[in-house]
């Protein structure tokens, strides 16, 4: 029988409280699903730069709520608000996913021994999901805090951030980390809750998406670098 912990007047619940174990699991999966699906949309939106400056300008204006403002440019307040929301989702995901991390040296040793001894693809994939997840504890806040403090988006303003502010260094690390983590995460999510049990097909789809999103992301990052290198400071916003 489990014992309830009590501090002062308040009950803290049971150790390993069952309901909270379930809630934590659902929160981790739910936040992961939101983040994974958002990434798929995000990478496509920002890659519209590959279709030209005017295309990206229009996408940015629409996403900033241009339809609802008289100028048609929208408001960067929307970017800031959405970035704060995404930061909160990331925090929920990180807090609940921490349960999965090997926290002690003995656990790392067990994982290393296991990977050396047992030949198992899904465990290796999870290992990389965990490593990329750890990297994102640092990389994602850098990206999101920038979008909160400096939310201007546009073909020139975004390119200036990438080139002149050296943000390509963050993105070149963040891109593979987030793509690998998110696609493997979505694959695992489907199996975990029994949404789909066609493992081979799902795993192949995850791998194809990883390759596709990496190419897409790298091409658009190169486009921003090329545009940014051609800009002189102070940078003037792009007007079609």
């Amino acid at each position, binding site marked *: 029988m489990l014992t309830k912990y009590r501090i002062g007047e308040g009950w803290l619940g049971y150790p390993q409280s069952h309901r*909270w174990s*379930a809630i934590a699991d659902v929160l981790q999966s739910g936040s992961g699903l939101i983040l994974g699906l958002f990434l798929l949309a995000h990478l496509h939106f920002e890659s519209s730069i590959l279709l030209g400056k005017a295309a990206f300008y229009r996408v940015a204006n629409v996403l900033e709520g241009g339809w609802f403002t008289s100028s048609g440019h929208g408001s960067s307040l929307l970017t800031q608000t959405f970035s704060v929301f995404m930061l909160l989702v990331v925090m929920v995901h990180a807090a609940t996913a921490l349960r999965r991390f090997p926290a002690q040296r003995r656990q790392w040793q067990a*994982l290393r021994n296991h990977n050396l001894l047992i030949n198992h693809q899904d465990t290796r994939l999870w290992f990389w999901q965990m490593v990329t997840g750890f990297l994102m504890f640092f990389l994602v806040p850098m990206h999101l805090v920038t979008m909160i403090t400096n939310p201007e988006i546009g073909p020139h303003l975004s390119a200036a951030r990438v080139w002149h502010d050296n943000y390509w260094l963050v993105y070149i690390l963040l891109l593979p980390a987030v793509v690998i983590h998110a696609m493997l995460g979505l694959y695992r999510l489907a199996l975990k809750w029994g949404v789909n049990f066609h493992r081979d097909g799902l795993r192949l789809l995850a791998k194809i998406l990883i390759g596709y999103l990496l190419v897409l992301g790298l091409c658009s990052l190169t486009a921003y670098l090329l545009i940014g290198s051609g800009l002189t400071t102070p940078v003037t916003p792009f007007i079609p």
Partner: protein
Amino acid sequence: MSRSLTFRIFRYDPQLPGDAPKMVDYQLDETPGMTVFIALNRLRAEQDPSLQFDFVCRAGICGSCAMVINGLPTLACRTLTAKYSDAVITLMPLPGFELIGDLSVNTGKFMRELAERLKLWLHPKAQQADIHHLEQPMEPEEAAKLYELERCVECGVCVSACATAQMRDTFVGAVGMMKIARFELDSRDARTADDFYHVIGTQDGVFGCMTLLGCQDNCPKDLPHMQQIAYLRRKMAGTLIASSKV
């Protein structure tokens, strides 16, 4: 002409003072239909009587001869040597269990402790505990479902193949969840769903599973671990979140 196989076997006897873990190579001519179990018996009979490994049934029923064969945990008696084209077969004991010696591990101790912890035996309803009354008949459909889950031979492969179980000693593993599912399904068992949730609706149970699927991929009895754990997760999450208990 038969091949000459090389068996690279983990050797270590914890009972022997001064002994250190090492890999030892043995050569053996392959015979038609040879399994790893047959090869081990010949090695012990013809080359090294001190070689330790477990077996009972030789037919994939007792689960005693589980070991890691070329990186995959499985049953030695069901593994044909012919499937290894490079003729080198590496044998390691199952990780995660107490080592008795060489390839022999104490899965029995683990399974007994797990059974005592999770109470993995039938808790009959009051009227059924009386041996002077006839047992209630069971519907064939229910018996078939129970039989499917009852096929587990407690070989320990799912525990060895699971990185979560290797990292967290208290994790019940696929074998624990499968057996809980088996008793939950049994209409003769007096325990309620709440009692079962209490046992595995935790971080050490279904919510601690990271869906690495080593259990699903290596189970020598092809038990549906992936589907079973997903089912338990959905069922428990729905019930527990809706409940007012902490």
